[in-house]
């Protein structure tokens, strides 16, 4: 039997780029080797196809523009070298991006003007691999400003469980985060999981350990020396002066305090490094948390975020969120909870879903089952039903959950996009609320996780109670002391009775009702959702019919002629009762949460549960975008904009997603598309929109 030729040689032989000896070898071996001949033929084929690609022509005016720049400089510079330099500098200057600055400017405006605030909680969980979440911006306590009035600023002191007005003479302690807890925990234990119950206490809410900071400095990785207090107090000053704050963010002033200025400058420097490092695919110019450093800190590097490419360790300050979240326990299934405070929850809800879609993530209640019946349908040659994420009509008194399960790069990109939204006020890490792996705090203190889980499986009612306690402990009680809660209650009561705007209670109620009804007319992506498909049986699901309104597939692929984006346009579609039922899948015992039929919503409690990811669920992710449709009909019905014509050419949401590969296959006149099964998929994200109702009154009351 002949030895196979190196494939590289086969490829080179297509180009004639081989030595005479290699040519003879290729000829000899291929004459005896049909597989080798086939491979070479395929190489030649793809080579030819690339050669045949049409070549775009330069836009009109390119040459003229070049020459104008050259000639405009030619008369000015006597020195040719100077002339050349000037020309080059001009060209470079014309391409300097200003995104970072503009982002910061928007940011300050938002920080000052935010009027309706709410919290968006994102729980990210890792399983098979770790999460790398490249948040492009980290927001420290200086921006933890939420105020219903929009007039002043209110800082949140986690340590003291109270808010204070920004004009207070007291400097506010920085927020303490999950990160801090992780740093101060033992690396040998399931620290992150176990910390669920301990996080609410003040002990774990300490600031970033001084020793750790010193170690960072000694290690040469911490080059920002602004302390949390400096930043908080100076930024508070700045936020009391909106115009000046905006000016400063625009780089035009430094009168607002040294700490603020230093922070800004450091951020600029860090951002610059971020861009360079990301572009170069290198960490060389960026300080990273190394294995040695994490050992010096006494923590597991997985908790620090081993891959911090592009972000300065200066971000590792109290109140900051790790730009690369890589949080796992020794079983690699610990979750971390990322809370994002946003200005407008409705906008955030829509935006989050759009970001998920744009990054190829279909939010859904995924579980270790073939959620959509993809496999069966595929095998039975039925067309697949698919739809965008559930509609999220918001009610003030409920959590809105969006459940996503996707490759980490996609999740990271989506969260990255969210971080760059001007509506985002704050990022914070919070304890995980992983029912299966977290120790759950109850009245008498932490209980054994296994016991809690066992109890939950035996008794859904008990599970509900446990979850409720976990939720309250982890989210509500952690923020509000008993005294504060009492003030909240008093505030709520007072608010109900007050009529300082001249409206009677009844009128106010009617106004609220009207507002609520308006909110329920929120934008939706389509009337069909994957969750809906879960409920329907596969057999009874209507088949896709091109051009027929109401067909989920049709809705998905058709788009207005003027749509600039391949994504489906958002249209206001009133929700049906069924859709509403599925809009917040967590509220209805969604598949796979480990607590069958817990009926959380029916019990008047909205909870957050994250379960470990298993391979079957990941496969569902891979299958999510798999379509099967008639090629001819698709061409006719969808037009050029949506014509799907091959791998990565389809208009599925992941089209254009970096690193995402699509596969297609044709059978008869039908063609199916699907994503390449992700290899390091491990992120499950639960987005919970928490209206700020429970928070903002507290601030007022306590203030």
């Amino acid at each position, binding site marked *: 039997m002949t*030895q*196979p030729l*190196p*494939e*590289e040689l086969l*490829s*080179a032989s297509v*180009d004639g780029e081989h030595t005479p000896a290699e040519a003879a070898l290729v000829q000899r071996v291929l004459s005896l080797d049909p*597989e*080798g001949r*086939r*491979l070479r*033929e395929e*190489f030649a*084929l*793809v*080579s030819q*196809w*690339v*050669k045949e*690609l*049409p070549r*775009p*022509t*330069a*836009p009109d005016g*390119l*040459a003229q523009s*070049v*020459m104008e*720049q*050259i000639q405009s400089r030619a008369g000015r510079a006597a020195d040719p070298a100077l002339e050349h*330099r000037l*020309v*080059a500098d001009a*060209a*470079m200057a014309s*391409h*300097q991006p200003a*995104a970072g600055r503009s982002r910061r400017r928007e940011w300050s405006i938002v920080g000052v003007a935010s009027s309706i605030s709410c919290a968006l909680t994102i729980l990210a969980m890792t399983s098979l691999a770790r999460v790398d979440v490249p948040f492009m911006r980290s927001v420290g306590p200086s921006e933890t400003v939420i105020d219903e009035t929009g007039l002043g600023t209110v800082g949140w002191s986690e340590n003291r469980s109270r808010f204070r007005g920004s004009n207070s003479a007291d400097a506010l302690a920085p927020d303490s985060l999950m990160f801090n807890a992780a740093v101060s925990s033992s690396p040998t234990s399931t620290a992150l999981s176990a910390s669920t119950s301990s996080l609410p206490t003040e002990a774990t809410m300490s600031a970033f350990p001084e020793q750790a900071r010193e170690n960072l400095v000694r290690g040469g990785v911490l080059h920002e020396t602004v302390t949390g207090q400096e930043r908080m107090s100076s930024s508070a000053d700045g936020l009391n002066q909106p115009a000046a704050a905006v000016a400063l963010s625009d780089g035009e002033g430094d009168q607002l305090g040294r700490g603020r200025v230093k922070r800004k400058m450091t951020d600029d420097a860090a951002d610059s490094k971020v*861009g360079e490092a990301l*572009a*170069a695919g290198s960490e060389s110019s960026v300080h990273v948390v190394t294995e040695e450093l994490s050992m010096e800190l006494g923590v597991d590097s997985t908790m620090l975020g081993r891959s911090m490419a592009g972000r300065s360790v200066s971000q590792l300050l109290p109140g900051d969120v790790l730009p690369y979240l890589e949080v796992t326990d020794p079983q690699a299934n610990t979750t971390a909870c990322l809370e994002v405070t946003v200005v407008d929850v409705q906008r955030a809800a829509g935006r989050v879903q759009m970001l998920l879609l744009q990054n190829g993530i279909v939010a859904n209640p995924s579980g270790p089952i073939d959620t959509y019946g993809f496999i069966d349908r595929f095998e039975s040659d039925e067309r697949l039903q698919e739809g965008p994420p559930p509609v999220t009509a918001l009610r003030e008194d409920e959590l809105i959950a969006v459940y996503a399960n996707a490759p980490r790069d996609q999740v990271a*990109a989506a969260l990255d996009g969210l971080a760059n939204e001007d509506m985002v006020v704050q990022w914070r890490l919070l304890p995980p609320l992983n029912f299966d792996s977290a120790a759950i705090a109850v009245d008498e203190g932490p209980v054994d996780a296994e016991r809690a889980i066992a109890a939950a499986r035996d008794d859904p009612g008990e599970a509900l109670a446990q979850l409720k306690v976990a939720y309250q402990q982890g989210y509500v009680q952690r923020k509000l002391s008993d005294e504060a809660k009492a003030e909240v209650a008093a505030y709520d009561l007072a608010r109900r009775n007050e009529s300082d705007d001249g409206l009677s209670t009844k009128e106010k109620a009617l106004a609220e009702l009207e507002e609520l009804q308006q909110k329920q007319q929120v934008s939706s992506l389509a009337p069909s959702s994957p969750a809906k498909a879960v409920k329907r049986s596969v057999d009874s699901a209507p088949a896709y019919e091109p051009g027929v309104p109401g067909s989920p597939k049709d809705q998905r692929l058709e788009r207005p002629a003027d749509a600039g984006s391949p994504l489906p346009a958002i249209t206001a579609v009133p929700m049906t009762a069924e859709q509403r039922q599925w809009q917040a899948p967590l509220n209805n015992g969604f598949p796979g949460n480990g607590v069958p039929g817990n009926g959380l919503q029916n019990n008047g409690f909205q909870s957050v549960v994250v379960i470990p990811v298993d391979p079957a669920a990941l496969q569902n992710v891979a299958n999510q975008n798999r379509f099967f449709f008639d090629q001819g009909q698709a061409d006719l019905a969808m037009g050029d904009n949506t014509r799907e*014509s*091959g*791998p*990565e*050419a389809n208009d599925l949401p992941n*089209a*254009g997603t*970096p690193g995402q*590969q699509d*596969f297609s*296959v*044709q059978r*008869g006149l039908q063609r199916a598309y*699907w994503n*390449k*099964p992700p290899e390091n998929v491990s992120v499950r994200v639960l987005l919970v929109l928490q209206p700020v109702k429970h928070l903002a009154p507290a601030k007022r009351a306590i203030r």
Partner: protein
Amino acid sequence: VTHATDQELIDRTLRGSPEAFGHLVERYQHRLFGTLCRVTGSPEAAQDASQDAFIHAYQKLTTYRGESAFYSWLFRIALNAVASAGRREKRRFTSLDHVRETAGFEPSDDRPGSEPWQGLDTQDRQHAVQQALAGLAEEYRTALVLKEMEDFSYEQIADVLEIPIGTVRSRIHRARQDLRLRLQGFVRHSLSGGSHVEETLSPTPPVPYASQKS
């Protein structure tokens, strides 16, 4: 003047005639832009890089020693401009769909006697090839584009990219291998004589050649 050689135009430019450089720009703008479109996947980036490259070339013209073809030298500058631009701004998407939409070209099959369905197939395939090409790792894509679209020799590519020839060979092979996997449906369709029937629904990628033999 337009029939002057590159070197003649360069000499005139260096003697103080920027207009001569204009002829070089006219001569190479489409070629450079077209190739950069494929390399960057973005007409905007290609335009910026082209412009930067010409201006830098003009600025550094005194350093051009004629050891390689002017276009190779220009292209090397252009690649540096692409890299610089990439450092300045991380591009989020590399989509040749975008190229098509922005640059306004649409793959077409002008072969005489082509049946309509054949034209559609060609369009589909070209679209798929564009997408697959855009999906390649940048270093592979660049090497392949230089080979297939510029018809550079491996040596020229090595010179432009400043990498060893062995690396060029490896990158081109990897690029083709990747393309072959991404386009396997079309490859099989084509090699099976154009039948529309695909024999398998499995996405299983082809077994590496060497593995088959071992």
